[in-house]
């Protein structure tokens, strides 16, 4: 039964020592330790949350980039298509224009040639006519120096006219 009767001395020293230990450790050990543990835990939680956020942001950015890329590709295709169309159109137009231009020039040239040919022909005709007249005049002047030659010539001319 001795075991069940608490000793006053031991009780007193235990109480005192425990309280001293409690206050010293509370001040110098448990405070900093528990605080550090809490800080670490919240730090880790924050880091994970931040990483998660960055990951989500990255994903969003990637998706954005991808859509931008697709858009750019589409735009490029569109632009290429348009450029090709424009090119074709310009070429066609140019061809058309050149053709009409050429045709016009050809026509003009032809007309001009025709006109000049006509003019030249007229001129040549006139010249020939004049020359013929002059030659005829000279010949006539020489042949028709005498009276009877003139008469004879007139006679001949008159005969010729009849024949025509």
């Amino acid at each position: 039964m001795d075991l069940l009767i608490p000793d006053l001395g031991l009780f007193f020293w235990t109480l005192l020592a425990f309280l001293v230990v409690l206050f010293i450790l509370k001040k110098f050990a448990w405070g900093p330790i528990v605080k550090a543990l809490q800080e670490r835990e919240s730090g880790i939680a924050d880091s994970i949350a931040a990483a998660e956020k960055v990951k989500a942001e990255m994903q969003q950015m990637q998706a954005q980039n991808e859509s931008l890329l697709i858009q750019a590709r589409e735009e490029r295709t569109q632009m290429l298509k348009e450029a090709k169309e424009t090119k074709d159109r310009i070429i066609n137009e140019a061809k058309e224009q050149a053709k009409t231009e050429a045709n016009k020039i050809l026509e003009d040239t032809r007309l001009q040639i025709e006109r000049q040919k006509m003019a030249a022909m007229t001129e040549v005709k006139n010249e020939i006519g004049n020359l013929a007249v002059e030659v005829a005049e000279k010949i006539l002047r020489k042949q028709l120096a005498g009276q009877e030659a003139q008469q004879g010539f007139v006679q001949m001319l008159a005969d010729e006219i009849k024949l025509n």
Partner: protein
Amino acid sequence: MLTICKRLFAVLFFIVAGFSAFASEEHAEAAHGEKKGFNASEVIFGHIGDNHDWHFFDWNGHPVSMPLPVIVYHPQKGLSVFSSARFHHGHESYEGYALNEKNKIVSEDGVAIKDFSITKNVTSMLISVILLLLIMTSVAKKYKKNGAMKAPSGFQNALEPVIVFVRDEVAKPNLGHKYMRYMPLLLTVFFFIWINNLLGLLPGGANFTGNIAVTAALSLISFIVIVFSGNKHFWGHLFNPPGVPFGIKLLLVPIEIISLFIKPIALMIRLFANILAGHIIILSVISMIFIFGALNAYAGWGFVPVSLAFAIFMFFLELLVAAIQAFIFTNLTAVFIGQAIEEAHHHDHEHEEYHAKHPITGQGYNVSEQEIIA
């Protein structure tokens, strides 16, 4: 594993059966020379009790021990402080004080004295306190030096899981969001009990936590904390349970008040009895060698392996018990504080209806509380 156990038991039975024959023969001889026998109960109770000197071993019949300071208060003579070596192991008296047969200091004039001596248990506790302070402050220094975000190293690494365990498994589930207020107390209780349990397991160590004065002091602290953290809700339910008929109140309130005191008493007895029992079992198993040795030298040597196997098994068990008992004391302290600081839940306004409809559930709650204490 099973076959090993079976073999062990077979060997044990063989040895016990084999030497029982010797024992009956020797018994007649032992009757002649009573002194020759080994007194196991003296050894065991000498160890588990407290002493005024730290006894290591006997050498040629002389005890080798460390004398410890004696501090006694006599109502007339006042305080006297002297070394326990003055008693010469109980053979002499000093300044009118002497050791009685139970190793207690008594005044020769028969006056009741107060004994505040630094006994073996107090010395063991002081060692544990120094160890605890050194370990914990060095670990705390490491936390301060390394900052919160660096991985723990060394002894810090060993203690951190335990501290986190006390916080996450003991404090948080029982105390809710107020747990930070009680963390220093719970951690100190846990580590104080644990380190003293472990020191008590060392050969020659004191039976500190297996002493009822120690557990009484610890549970007194728990009790004071429980009482002082009790809120209006707690005291209200204790002295005036709402929705209980007056006749039942007359029964219930005294039971509730008694349970308030039973809780710390249960804490006190549980720790004391567990550690005491462990010490007694280990000492008994070791004493078996000498009991058999006193009967017959061969029997003594023959029993050594069996005794050692049991002692080693018990030591491992006690290592477990050392941690488990520290945990249980801490956890129950947290549970009782949790009951005291529990806020009135939203079910409070439906309380009357609840009790009116199910009077049995109130009883069921009390039963579960008893189970926790047991």
